[in-house]
């Protein structure tokens, strides 16, 4: 479950004002709005990457407003994938597990399991240089899912993809959510994408949440 109550975040002259919503556990929320409306700022605040000046963020019923990002158990996929340039695909997927001190065999099994879901088993030995946009997003998704997060935050993960790749990524996101039951908050500009994926659609305008409702 993701809940945000009267959240205020200031970034320079821009401000998120009294943003509040609640996504039930296991649901798929899509956050829409124009460029500059504060979608990414809200997502970053939920992930713990922005200082919050008022209000609360609750994940799974716990108040995490003052928790560091590392404790929030959120898988984050940014728009540009932001893969780690010096690591191979296998190492990207194992990153969070290694930080958590998983044993080698458990780590290897989990990486292979996630890679199989995402159809990137053939890429495990590859450097990230030369991955296509769709492949890079799958790797970023795998890196975010490997440690079994309760929440997945996706910042326009499909915006740079061509129509066919976008379609297959949508199918993948649906199957990942069905399999893991993770609560998803997904930013997009694409209405068709929102209609296809969303249980809940949230719309932002100039730092305020304008509408919310079931899809």
């Amino acid at each position, binding site marked *: 479950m993701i809940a945000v109550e009267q959240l205020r975040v200031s970034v320079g002259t821009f401000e998120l004002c009294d943003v509040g919503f609640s996504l039930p556990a296991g649901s798929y929320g899509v956050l829409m709005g124009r460029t500059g409306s504060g979608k990414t700022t809200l997502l970053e605040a939920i992930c713990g*990457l922005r200082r919050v000046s008022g209000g609360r963020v609750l994940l799974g019923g716990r108040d995490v407003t003052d928790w560091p990002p590392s404790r929030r158990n959120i*898988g984050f996929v940014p728009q540009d994938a932001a893969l780690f340039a*010096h690591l191979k695909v296998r190492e990207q997927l194992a990153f969070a597990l290694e*930080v958590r001190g998983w044993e080698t065999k458990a780590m290897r099994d989990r990486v292979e399991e996630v890679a199989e879901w995402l159809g990137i088993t053939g890429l495990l030995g590859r450097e990230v240089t030369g991955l296509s946009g769709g492949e890079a997003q799958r790797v970023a998704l795998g890196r975010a899912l490997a440690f079994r997060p309760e929440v997945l935050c996706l910042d326009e993960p499909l915006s740079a993809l061509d129509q066919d790749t976008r379609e297959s990524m949508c199918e993948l996101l649906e199957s990942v959510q069905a399999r893991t039951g993770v609560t998803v908050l997904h930013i997009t500009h694409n209405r068709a994408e929102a209609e296809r994926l969303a249980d809940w659609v949230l719309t932002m305008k100039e730092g305020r949440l304008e509408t919310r409702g079931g899809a």
Partner: protein
Amino acid sequence: MRRTGADSAPLSGGDRGFYAALGLLGGVYVFLVAAMLVADMAYTTPGHLLASLKSPEIRYAMRLSLLSCTLTTLLSLWVAVPLGYLLARRNFPGKQLVDLMVDIPIVLPPLVVGLSLLILFQTAPGRALGELFPVTYAIPSVILAQFMVACAFAVRTMRTTFDQMNPRAEQVALTLGCDRAQAFWRVAFPAARRGMLAAATLAWARSLGEFGPILIFSGATRFKTEVLSTTVFLELSVGNLEAAVAVSLLMVITAVVALVVLRRWAHETALGHPRST
């Protein structure tokens, strides 16, 4: 495939003219550098070079140059990586002042750096330190004099490196379970290796050419604080122009060999080839 930024598109007549103009403007400088080296080579003979290499004073100066430049480079990186990262990623009180202070050794005349170091070690704390651990007119003064200038260039290089790196990857690392230190060591530090190579090269080359602060702060004592740049000065001051030119050429050869070795080592360890997305 590694991206080089080189343009391989076919050229039109106008494009050729444009590149020719660029080549002409840049070529004047490259020609001047080459002409200087050719003039040096024409002035000296293999005999002079060999004599320089056999001279115990010059061999000592060369050993001290190589040792002090390498130590200075390591010390500069030791400071430049954390300071560059801090300046690029955090806002803190007095940041602008720190930024300004880092530039001071770059804008000050090298002689003034040497003079200021000499005065610093004449103060009570400086003298107390000198009694415990001799610095002035000893080998540590050579390293300190080189470090004061080289480190400023290394910090600038590392600051630019981290400024140009998108912090997003480090933010992702935080959500994946890292604290700030882990995000630095696991993500930012490996991604900055090309910048570190550039900073190391710059610091090393700058140290090899350092002369003013060493002359003032370390003196020019043979078999003690003499480095190759000091040798050129000492030979010139006694009118031995042939030896001065021979040592100058030795410095060029030493620098080229060291930089080629550094780059080859970096290439073999993939240090200079970040796998970028």
